[in-house]
């Protein structure tokens, strides 16, 4: 990375609609970008509009593209939705601490993703399924609002049939024609048939989902320090200077966004934090 506070111009190479509000696009990596770790994020900048922290959702081994999956719910993300190749945006990164994949080697890797929370976990799937011999099993539990909002469905089904991914998905509600699961993601944990003592869990989604998921995992016997979560706060400088993303003693941009659950549990249970 060059100056971490200075965005570099990059060109949008491809753009794809995922659901009504969610889209995925790829940009060329800027000069000197190097590699990123699963779970890290970039700051994406639109001149005159603003800047936003966006997780990297692509394959860490792909040196030619940086992929971002975005939910258009704010000023910057709505403006991003209107762009198409070869539009240019500003980018700086990668920032933050990623998922501790090494800690899962030789063990069962359990990913729990809610909604857009799958985006920062997809790089983990790329890496883990490229070297499945390193893990006893790779399981993805996926929750979404509706069947139409399940992300990367085709790719996940391919990974399930060709790469040994154990995939369980559920939605909050569905029409009578839906043949899949309806319910909450925490109900899937029991069905996954995990060996709790052997499991390393990585969880990403709304904070309430993180709390309930961690609770269910612990009820089943997964060790607290084997549960990792990715948190979201308003990030501005992304380098730990400005304090916008402070959570207790942590700056999410620098010390996170991925944390061992026991490190942040207290703050997630405290109002106003």
């Amino acid at each position, binding site marked *: 990375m060059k100056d971490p506070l200075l965005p570099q111009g990059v060109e949008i190479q491809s753009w794809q609609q995922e659901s009504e509000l969610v889209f995925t696009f790829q940009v060329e990596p800027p000069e000197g970008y190097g590699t990123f770790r699963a779970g890290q994020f970039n700051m994406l900048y639109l001149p005159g509009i*603003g800047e*936003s*922290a966006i997780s990297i959702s692509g394959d860490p081994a792909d040196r030619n593209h940086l992929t971002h999956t975005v*939910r258009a*719910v*704010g*000023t*910057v*993300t709505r403006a991003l939705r209107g762009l198409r190749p070869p539009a240019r945006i500003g980018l700086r990164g990668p920032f933050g601490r990623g998922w501790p994949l090494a800690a899962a080697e030789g063990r069962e890797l359990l990913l729990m993703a*809610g*909604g*857009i929370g799958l985006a920062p976990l997809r790089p983990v799937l790329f890496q883990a399924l490229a070297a499945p011999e390193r893990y006893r099993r790779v399981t993805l539990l996926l*929750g*979404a*609002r509706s069947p139409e*909002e399940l992300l990367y469905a085709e790719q996940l089904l391919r990974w399930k049939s060709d790469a040994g991914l154990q995939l369980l998905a*559920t939605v*909050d*509600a*569905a*029409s*009578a024609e*839906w*043949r*899949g*699961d*309806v*319910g*909450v993601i*925490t*109900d899937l944990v*029991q*069905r996954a048939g995990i060996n709790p003592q052997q499991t390393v869990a990585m969880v990403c*989604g*709304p904070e*309430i*989902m993180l709390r*309930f998921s961690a609770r269910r995992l612990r009820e089943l016997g997964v060790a607290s320090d084997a549960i990792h979560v990715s948190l979201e706060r*308003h990030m501005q400088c992304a380098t730990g200077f400005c304090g916008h993303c402070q959570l207790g003693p942590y700056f999410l941009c620098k010390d996170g966004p991925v944390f061992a659950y026991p490190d942040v549990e207290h703050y997630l249970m405290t109002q106003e934090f």
Partner: protein
Amino acid sequence: MRTVGDELRAHPFFTGLSEDCMQLIAGCGEHVVFRSGATIATEGSAANEFYVIERGRVALRLHTSAAGAILIQTLDAGDILGWSWLFPPFRWSIEAIAMQDVHAIRLDGKCLRHKCDTDPVMGYALMQRFSYIMSQRVEATRLQVLDLYGSANGP
């Protein structure tokens, strides 16, 4: 061939119940099969049974005038279907449809209610277990109602 009693004893829901209780409960049970698409229960009908699902998937549905049948939960192998048999007026509060061929153990609620009335220890033990399931469903419903993944705020 495994008997109803064998199947129930191996199910976590019944773990911890005495052998006497298990014999009483198993005496109220029978294996049943619902073909895919079959109606297991209709909203408002008499609830004189509950089911231990052994295989297959069950859809719990509510009908609305605006959107027709809404699928609000699915139950799979190992899940318990039905608690309305425990409480007056003993009517199903939801529709249950087999989404696949469903193999289950049907437990006669009338028979069990009578046994629970005459054996409060067993009644309390069953009530505890159903209360736990209901608390789990309430928690799940809270999460669904919160519309966690639908937040309209963000950067």
